[in-house]
């Protein structure tokens, strides 16, 4: 950024110096006769050319000034059109196909295939239930996938596919890339569609007969799809921009209202230095 600013400034200053100088030069050059006026534009300017040493110096100066002016837009253009270094290979469609696994809310990127809730239940019981629980309630400390409806504004919000996720694509894309945990990207497309369908069914978003595919993608309505809004801190937290914060007697005497020791959840070194202590 600063580099380009500098370049613009340099180009401007060159331009200005030319304007000042050219007016000056033209005035002087006139006295020497019209032939000299063409001098700076003559490409084959040589020390053996006509004119005195003084006029030659002026010619050179004028030529340089003009050249710089001509160069200025060229420099500016160079700044705008990025340099291509010829580094990096063209990616082949086959290479892209192998890695291009993301799926957007509008379904862009979803692979061919389909899966029923019924098929999904089988896949889920085999590959997911051990961690997420048979009903998506979580087995132990892994993320729950179902339940939690109506809890988001409570003291104990439970964020699941049904209660929190705003987009079908989010579930689909995540399972496709990262699940089953420890065996990522192992599901077939049909298994993937099926297990997503089953997860939706666990949350009562689709019925038992539902078959998920690109064709039925848009039929899925996520319960919390209106639950999000873009970062608005600069508006809603504007009060935190206060260049003169209080320095003296800012609040009444302070009392301690809570102590970490009372909770006693800080691991000691025997625990904190061991990996995977569950």
């Amino acid at each position, binding site marked *: 950024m600063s580099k380009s600013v500098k370049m613009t400034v340099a180009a401007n200053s060159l331009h200005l110096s030319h304007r000042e100088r050219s007016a000056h030069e033209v005035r002087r050059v006139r006295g020497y006769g019209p032939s000299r006026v063409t001098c700076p534009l003559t490409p084959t300017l040589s020390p053996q050319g006509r004119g005195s040493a003084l006029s030659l110096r002026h010619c050179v100066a004028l030529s340089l000034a003009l050249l710089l002016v001509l160069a200025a837009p060229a420099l500016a253009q160079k700044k705008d059109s990025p340099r291509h270094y010829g580094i990096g290979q063209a*990616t082949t469609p086959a290479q892209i196909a192998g890695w291009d696994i993301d799926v*957007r809310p509008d379904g862009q990127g979803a692979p061919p295939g389909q899966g029923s809730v019924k098929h999904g239940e089988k896949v889920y019981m085999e590959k997911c239930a051990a961690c997420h629980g048979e009903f998506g309630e979580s087995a132990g400390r892994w993320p729950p996938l179902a339940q939690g409806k109506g809890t988001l504004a409570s003291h104990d919000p439970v964020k699941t596919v049904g209660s929190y996720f705003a987009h079908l694509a989010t579930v689909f894309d995540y399972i496709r890339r990262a699940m089953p945990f420890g065996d990522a990207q192992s599901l077939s497309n049909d298994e993937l569609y099926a297990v997503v369908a089953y997860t939706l069914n666990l949350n009562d978003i689709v019925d038992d007969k539902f078959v998920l595919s690109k064709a039925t993608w848009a039929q899925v309505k996520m319960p919390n799809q209106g639950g*999000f809004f873009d970062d608005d801190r600069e508006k809603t937290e504007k009060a935190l921009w206060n260049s003169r914060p209080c320095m003296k007697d800012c609040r009444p005497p302070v009392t301690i209202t809570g102590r970490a020791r009372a909770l006693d959840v800080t691991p000691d070194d025997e625990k904190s230095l061991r990996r995977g202590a569950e």
Partner: protein
Amino acid sequence: MSDDLTRTSRRKFLAGAAGLAAGAAAGAAHAENAKNLPPHVADWTRNLGEGVGTRPYGQPSKFEKDAVRRTVPWLTATPESSVSFTPLHALDGIITPNGLCFERHHGGIAEIEPSDYRLMLHGMVDKPLIFTLDDLKRLPRVNKIHFLECAANSGMEWRGAQLNGVQYTHGMVHCVQYTGVPLKILLEQAGVKANAKWILAEGGDAAAMNRSIPMTKALNDCIVAYRSNGEMLRPEQGYPVRLVVPGWEGNVWVKWLRRLKVGDQPWFTREETSKYTDLLENGKARQFTFVMDAKSVITSPSPQAPCKQKGFNIISGLAWSGRGKIIRVDVSLDGGRNWRTARIDGPVFDKACVRFYYEFDWNGDELLLQSRAMDETGYVQPSKDTLRKIRGVNSIYHNNGIQTWALKANGEVENVEVG
């Protein structure tokens, strides 16, 4: 980060023996050996030490065992998708040593052969490209010092003081010098289409972690980095290549970067919807809260770094802001009633940690220590209560409220809430 961060009920460890401060204090107090003290000549003065080359990659002194990353086992279900914390109490200056930078993995540490590394750049571009590591190293490079803070740093503290150590309350931050290619240059090589607005960054780890980043940020200051503090990235930090997104939450700094896809809208990935969104009291959630607000914390004294002596003492801390440079840090000894301006020492970089000191004489009175950061946009770090009034206590992420340490007469320090 699991939502369990804010729930303490499920798993409570009975911390062994006394608290952590006492443990740390005991650990630090090695018994003196009079034979090594004057007038005696110490062992290491009489005997030769190890020769050169016996430590091809130098390690910290064996006596510095406290300066290590630590975990909170009850936080997560498995160490492969978990976090370890930077020992801020044991460090000074602004640069975090590579081996102490906190870790956050979603599918364990990918170990990538550099010869098998590829970065794919495709989507809404004129010419999809694939780069080797050597390709990236041949392109023009920059060196930038930036902090990286996990959005969930201090996430366990929304409902009150919970973890007794700055390593646990604030240790999901580090600050190093990155070397790499400006993302803008890579995008220029491929030629971004005029209507492209977003870019998807994807990791090559077993979570294939993916986040959407606005094109304006990608073209502004993002770096495709391969070095940290001069050496190649550590595996825990994404070796051989990670994305650097200055000032923004750590989750978007995708490690083990394997793919960049250009598009015209965000992807709403799991990490930017079900995680890393900030649930407010009314049940609605803020999304794409990328910027890390100004924050500071006193790293010493702190629960793991108790005050050892009365008399002259130095309060030392870190401050950082995702919106620009830190311009001032204030310190309070009375829980935020009165403030004095601390001294910032060392370099001040854009979106980087700064080190501050406040020197004072301690007469043994109990103190409530706080620090308050201000950045060049005029943003002032708020109190925790101010933040709770605006956001409630369910946000998990982006807790930049002012930390209070209670310094007791015996020099121990505890994480407390004040009101």
